[in-house]
Each structure stands twice: as C-alpha cells, then as structure tokens.
C-alpha cells in the first residue's frame, strides 16, 4: 500500500491546471470514450498525439506518468506477449516454435495505443485537479450525497488505515510471522487463520473509529438536514480559457469518432 501514501495532484501553473474542474472532467471523459471507440490502427498515432499534446500542456513531469504506467502494465504485458504469437493467419516471421503473426501484432498495437492514451488522460485529470475539487465537480454534476460523503470520508481515512495495517504487519513479522517455509502449492491453514485475524482486527479498529467519527460529526450538525460539505462550496465560474480548451478537446473527440466511422466504411 505504499503507493497510497501520496496524493496524485502536482501543483503547477499550467492552462490545464487552471481549466475549470467540471469542464475538464466532462471533456476528458468524453475524449477517453472517443479513444475507446478507435478500432483503426491509422488513428492510433493521432490518439497518442492528442494525449501527448495535452500532457505537455499540463506541464506534469514525465516521471509522474512513468511511475504510474508501470503498475497496471502487467495484464497488458501478457496480451503484448501472447496476441502476436497466437492470433491470426498471416505469418511475419518464424524462429523455431515461435511464430509472429500480423493480425495479433496489429491488435496488440491497437490495445496498447488505446491503453496508453486513455491512461495518460486519466493521469492528466488526476495530476492537475486536487481530489477535493474533483469530488466537488462530480457533486455539482449530480453525484448523490451518500456517495460523495462516503468518498470523502473513505479518502480521509484511507492513509490512516493503510498506516495501521503496515504497523500491524510489521508487528507480526517481528513476532516471527512468515519465517516458516511452506511446501509448494500448499496453503498453510495457520497462516490463513493469522491473516484472517489481521484483516478482522483491521475491520474492528476501523469500525470502532467510525463510531467515534460519527459522534463527532453529529455534534457538528451532520445528519440534521444540513447539506453535504461538498454541496455547500460554490463552484467557480469557468473562464474563456476553460471554454476554449473544452471546445478543442470535444472537437478532437468528435473528429476521432467521425474518422473512425469513415475509415470503418
């Protein structure tokens, strides 16, 4: 859970940072879906270009994207390895039992292209918008109060609970947990029992903490018909720059969908 210990927001003064969170959320979501519609390999460079252009505009460091791309890559990696070797009839090259096939290779390039561009957009959104602004934008777009409050509270305690688990796991290791060797493909009942109790303790501690949090919230007026904290904050009016960026991004999204339709015919 080490990755949960830092926020994804990176402070900069770029135009993407100044883009109204509500318009940014809607525009980037539309563009992500437009990217997901792409089936033609010729559109992949365009898609990557749009994503790279927006990333440059956001002034986020490249290391931010590199760190985050490495984690979800595992599933994609298995497709990258398997598809070119297994799918299709047109053989591009053969080395012993390994056969490189054209159709599989093309499908892989398409999937990886979409993956990289959509994920880049996701990280632009998260890297340039503080979590609370993002939640406020969702709330103003109609996110139900229960969901907004739950998201806010869960996020507030996420890091604390992660730290609690880390401490508990360290205490277990210091008492000798995990030092015993186990046979291959065998699940040790005692180990399972100890891990179940670890998770159970984590739940009980969180539950007890939730009781204290609820009492404190009630004392401050929560649940007496008052609006959610998120709902009270005024949403700033978007400026010309925000509308301009929204227009450009939506035009790019519509352009991609039209191009996809034409190329498919």
């Amino acid at each position: 859970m080490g990755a949960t210990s830092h926020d994804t927001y990176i402070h900069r003064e770029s135009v993407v940072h100044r883009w109204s969170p509500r318009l940014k959320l809607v525009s980037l979501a539309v563009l992500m879906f437009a990217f997901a519609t792409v089936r033609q390999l010729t559109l992949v460079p365009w898609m990557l270009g749009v994503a790279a252009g927006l990333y440059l505009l956001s002034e986020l460091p490249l290391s931010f994207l590199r760190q985050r791309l490495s984690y979800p890559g595992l599933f994609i990696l298995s497709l990258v390895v398997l598809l070119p070797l297994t799918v299709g009839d047109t053989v591009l090259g053969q080395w012993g039992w390994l056969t490189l096939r054209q159709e599989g290779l093309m499908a892989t390039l398409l999937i990886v292209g979409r993956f990289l561009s959509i994920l880049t957009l996701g990280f632009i959104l998260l890297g340039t918008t503080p979590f609370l602004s993002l939640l406020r934008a969702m709330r103003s777009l109609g996110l139900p109060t229960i969901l907004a409050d739950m998201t806010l509270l869960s996020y507030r305690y996420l890091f604390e609970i992660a730290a609690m688990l880390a401490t508990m796991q360290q205490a277990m290791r210091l008492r000798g947990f995990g030092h015993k060797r186990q046979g291959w493909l065998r699940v040790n009942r005692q180990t399972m029992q100890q891990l179940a109790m670890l998770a159970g303790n984590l739940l009980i501690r969180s539950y007890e903490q939730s009781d204290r949090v609820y009492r404190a919230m009630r004392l401050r007026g929560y649940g007496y018909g008052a609006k959610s904290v998120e709902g009270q904050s005024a949403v700033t009016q978007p400026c010309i720059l925000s509308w301009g960026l929204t227009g450009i991004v939506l035009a790019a999204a519509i352009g991609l969908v039209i191009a996809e339709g034409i190329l498919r015919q």
Partner: protein
Amino acid sequence: MHIPDGILSAQVCAAGYAVTGLATWYSLRQINRRPDPTAEIPKASLLTAAFFVASSIYIPVPPASVHLILNGLLGVVLGYFAFPAILIGLFFQALVIGHGGLTTLGVNAAMMGIPALLAYHMFQTRHTVGQLLKEPARTGVFAFLGGALGLGIAALIFLALIILNIPAQLDAGAEQTAVLALSIGHVPLAIIEGVFTAMLVLFLRRAKPELLEG
C-alpha cells in the same frame, strides 16, 4: 482482476456505466429506506477504506502468493452499502495507483459489486435455509459460500468480458479450451477466498458480532 483502459470498446464501457448506475441507484434506494441512512455512512466509509487496504494482503501459496479480492466479504459485512463501497474503492484504485481504469470503472464495479450483493443475500439466507445447521457452523458455511460466490461470479464475468472482447481470430475449439482452463483455474482461488471469508467472519462473530448485523 481489473480490466484496464483500452481493452473494451466504448459501447461495453458505456454499458458498464449503465449497469453500475442502475445497481448504485438500487443500493441507494434500499439504504434510504432505513430509518437513519446517514448513521451508516461513517461505518460504511471507514470499512470501505479498510477493505481497500485489506485487499492488499497477500496469502502465500508457494512459490507465489494470492491477492485477495474480498468482494464477497464486503457484501457479507456491508449489505447494500457494498456496491457503493466497491465503486468508491475501485475509483481510488484507478486514482491512486492507476489499477483498473476510468473508462472501465463502470464495468469493473458491476463485475465486483453485483456478486457482492449476491454474496450478501447468500449470507442472509442462513436465517432461513440454514436452520438445519447449528452455530457457529451455520455462519461459517454461509460466509464460505458468500466469499466463494463473490469471487467465483466476478471471475466468470471477467472471463466472459475478456473472451468476448479480445480480437477473436482464435478458433472456437481453442476458445472453449481457454475458457474451461481459466474457469477451472479460478476454482482454487474461489475456495481460498471462501475459506478466508469464513475464518474472518467467525473471528468477527466472536470479537465484534454487531459488525455482521447489517
């Protein structure tokens, strides 16, 4: 067991959001029927965070280790709050560690959340169907079924989505073999998840029984 961005078509992603929207609406409707829905929010929120954190616990199965999903357990403990909790948990995973995806959030939430609701109903049937068994065996058996069902159904939905959406120049025979092999491969995982859920629920029953009342 998350589907990342870029694999599914826009139509499937949109359909995922539609199903998730419907399931969230249904869950919130059930929650709002309670006498004081806000009283449950802190409990559900902190447990959402705890589940998100607890799912990072690995069970060592040498030479590798098994990552827990815990969606069945979430259903068992949180009831109708399980669906919003999974939606929020997956949103955090996409947000904080880039696991899953924003376009596939709807699909992933439906894939994990609907089995969690089924697990909740399965666990609740212990009051009616499980009368033949004595406590604590009754709680243990139904918690096992809830945990195994939660992961089992999620795995089946995952496999169906992947196989239907991966470019299908594979021949039907190879596809059937792959589905069968992957389905059989998930059976031990469902059993591990079920046993873990049963152990944890039995522990909670002894230490904090009010957590299982939801």
